[in-house]
């Protein structure tokens, strides 16, 4: 057999190849390790031990492990805070250190965590699962955790936790008073007292001497002129300094110096930064009307119905479907028949007396009276009495042709 040409390469190349192989293995080990190395593993272990110590191993064994998140679909927020803050919904750790502390129950009753998530109130980066990134203390994240310690760095006058109220005002923007948001409430009072709208447009109306403040909170930090600002170089710090002495920050401004106290200036700055182009569903906006708007005439007519002889039917809710024209009650929908002549109408429609029908309704009314308007026997008796009165009135009006009754 012919010989193979001898090659000078294998001696060195094999060695190089081996080194490359070792480096590949090391590289693989490194990235596997770096993917596992996260603080939350430690925090979950620690909390498991705390629960085991306090409530027993059985309770600890059923604690969720791995990355956890609250998905608030309406707000498109995936908040993974609960990966480390596992105790938020776990009663019994009210006085523990963070991240093992139970969340106070009161705010959550009005703001269910599954609807609001964590970051819509607290700020921070819900997507992240490492402490610094999650608390938003990293570059390129402009919504830091609005914590007590952040309040400390601004030497916030009064409540050190007040920065969080900026996020309250995302939804509570149109409230005059928001319970628990003292700083924002103070600022809103000042806006009215000092007459800010004389020069500034706020929520769509006001003067045009100063800039429109409706979405002033959207202004990017880069767009502030911080050249005259000393100390912290943030938009918030600029607003505080500007409220205390407008002319010192912005040369030639005509904005008067109102001699605000530190607390007032800080509260106003929070209000400014809270006025953002918030993309929240209408359901989340506090104070937004929940009913169709009604004209003054309609409101007056409804008030008259409530206080008139047929008021009982309005309060009970019968008038949603039924007019009782003899008693001056006019249903906005008029789905059901006029009840003015119910006494004889029931007899003709259902073949039973009014008393029997109400005691044992059939058809649509059986559904309505069992699910929506549930009457006690005493209330049913009131209904019968009132309907008899209505019928008497109906007959009286029929006898007098001047007032024709509406009948459907």
């Amino acid at each position: 057999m012919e010989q193979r040409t001898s090659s000078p390469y294998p001696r060195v190349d094999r060695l190089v190849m081996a080194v490359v192989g070792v480096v590949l293995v090391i590289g693989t080990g490194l990235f596997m390790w770096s993917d596992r190395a996260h603080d939350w593993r430690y925090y979950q272990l620690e909390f498991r031990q705390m629960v085991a110590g306090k409530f027993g191993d059985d309770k600890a064994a059923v604690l969720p492990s791995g990355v956890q998140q609250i998905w608030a679909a309406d707000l498109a927020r995936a908040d993974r805070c609960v990966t480390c803050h596992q105790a938020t919904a776990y009663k019994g750790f009210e006085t523990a250190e963070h991240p093992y502390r139970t969340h106070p129950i009161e705010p959550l009753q009005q703001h269910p965590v599954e609807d609001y998530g964590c970051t819509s109130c607290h700020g921070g980066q819900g997507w992240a699962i490492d402490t610094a990134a999650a608390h938003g203390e990293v570059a390129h994240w402009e919504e830091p955790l609005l914590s007590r310690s952040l309040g400390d760095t601004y030497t916030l006058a009064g409540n050190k936790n007040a920065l969080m109220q900026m996020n309250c005002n995302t939804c509570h923007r149109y409230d005059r008073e928001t319970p628990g948001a003292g700083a924002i409430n103070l600022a809103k009072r000042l806006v009215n007292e000092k007459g800010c709208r004389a020069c500034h447009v706020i929520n769509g109306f006001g003067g045009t001497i100063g800039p429109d403040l409706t979405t002033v909170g959207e202004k990017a930090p880069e767009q502030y002129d911080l050249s005259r600002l000393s100390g912290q170089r943030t938009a918030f710090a600029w607003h505080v300094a500007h409220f205390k002495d407008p002319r010192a920050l912005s040369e030639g401004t005509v904005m008067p110096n109102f001699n605000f106290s530190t607390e007032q200036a800080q509260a106003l700055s929070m209000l400014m930064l809270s006025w953002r182009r918030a993309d929240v569903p209408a359901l989340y906006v506090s104070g937004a009307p929940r009913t169709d708007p009604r004209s003054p005439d309609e409101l007056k007519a409804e008030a008259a119905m409530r206080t008139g002889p047929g008021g009982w039917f309005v309060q009970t809710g019968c008038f949603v479907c039924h007019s009782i024209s003899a008693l001056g009650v006019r249903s906005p929908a008029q789905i059901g028949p006029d009840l003015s002549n119910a006494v004889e109408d029931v007899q003709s429609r259902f073949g039973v007396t009014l008393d029997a029908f109400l005691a044992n309704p059939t058809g649509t009314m059986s559904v309505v009276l069992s699910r929506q308007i549930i009457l006690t026997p005493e209330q049913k008796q009131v209904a019968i009495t009132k309907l008899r009165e209505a019928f008497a009135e109906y007959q009286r009006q029929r006898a007098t042709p001047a007032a024709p009754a509406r009948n459907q």
Partner: protein
Amino acid sequence: MRLPSLTRSKPEAPGVHAEPFWSLRPQSDREAGDAVVSNFMLHWFPAKISKASMAWNYSFWLGTISAALFFLTILSGLPLLFLYVPSVERAYQSVKDIEFVITFGSWIRSVHRISAHLMVIVVALHLMRVFLTGAYKNGVGRGQQREVNWVIGVVMFLTTLFLSFTGYLLPWDQLAFWAVTVGTNIAASIPAIGASVRELLIGGRNIEQATLIRFYVLHVVFLPGLLGVLFAYHMWRVRKDGGLARADAESVVESPRSTAPVPSKTYTLLGVARGTAPTVTAHTLDAPDATVNAVPDLVRRAAIATLGTIAVISIMSVFIASPLEEPANALVTPNPAKAPWYFLWLQEIVTDTTIRIGSFTLNGAFVGGVILPGLLVGLLTFWPWIDKSSHLAAGVWLPRDRRTQNLVFLLLILGVLALTFVGMVLRGPYWILYWPWEAWPEIPGRI
């Protein structure tokens, strides 16, 4: 013939390899040659290769490394395809999820990003190497068309740049948005048709959903497909042209008298190519001291280059995190707004050629962004036909014959590098020059 194998059944015919996994130590040159033919992955290798072509310090294996990087971007891009959502509402969020909660997500994204950036660099270095060694020149083989392969190479380089540029937009953060804004505004400066070109590129007048889906489809379907096809043709041409130009140079050196080569050996690819296949002087390539068998010597070196690239990228990706800035915001321009780094020399020229005389402004974007790069790419493309040096200068580093053109080329490269450095490092807010030791004004925060 006999293939030493671990299996019981021995292949009867040459060219048919019975083993699912390839493990071979050929005992003869014949076996080594058969091994190339019988393996799908190796069919594009020659049976034998000159030692000179194998040398680390001739080609620096930049082409192989480019291919390895291309392979890595595709491999790391596949999982990203399953995770990334090309919509302006969700793109940024999906990248955040890749970064934070997808298993190995941030590493995969780093592999993809670092490979892509390095690919731009290595492809550019490969192109420089080919120029400086005159490797686009035909040597002594018959029917060589290396200049065609050079043109293909230039197109591949531009495709690489465009691939990287289209990928830049996808995270939909400020970096992406404004880099693409700067890039597409340069295209808009072409007289008469500029606005239409920009509109075609971004699918409208603003960088929006239409732009994102356009760049996305280009990035994941068309450009990789194009590059893959060009890559296959590029490799095929290398074989058709008789390997690296260095092999020609070597045979010339070994036998200076062979001006008329002896047509004694023809390399064909499975009999597909006929007639124009180059014929290389047999006596040098068959000389035992000038050549080695592709199996296993070339295979091993190719593996070292490829796996070495993968190993380096893998480790780099653990330590170098991929940036993700604030979500894209058309209302807030970051200061300074910079194009991707490989276009920064153009942005720098654009700035430097913008001339203001009173209220009259001569827009430099046309000169710096269109004319100059157009001229350079044109020159680069047609250089093989402009270069009239001897065929003896093919495959030789910095030959005397091509001294002037190499010098001009190197000076141009140096200029591009200098401008890139200025744009990358020295340009601060408002495009003002800052020395590296001078601090930029502090970027303020919100709260």
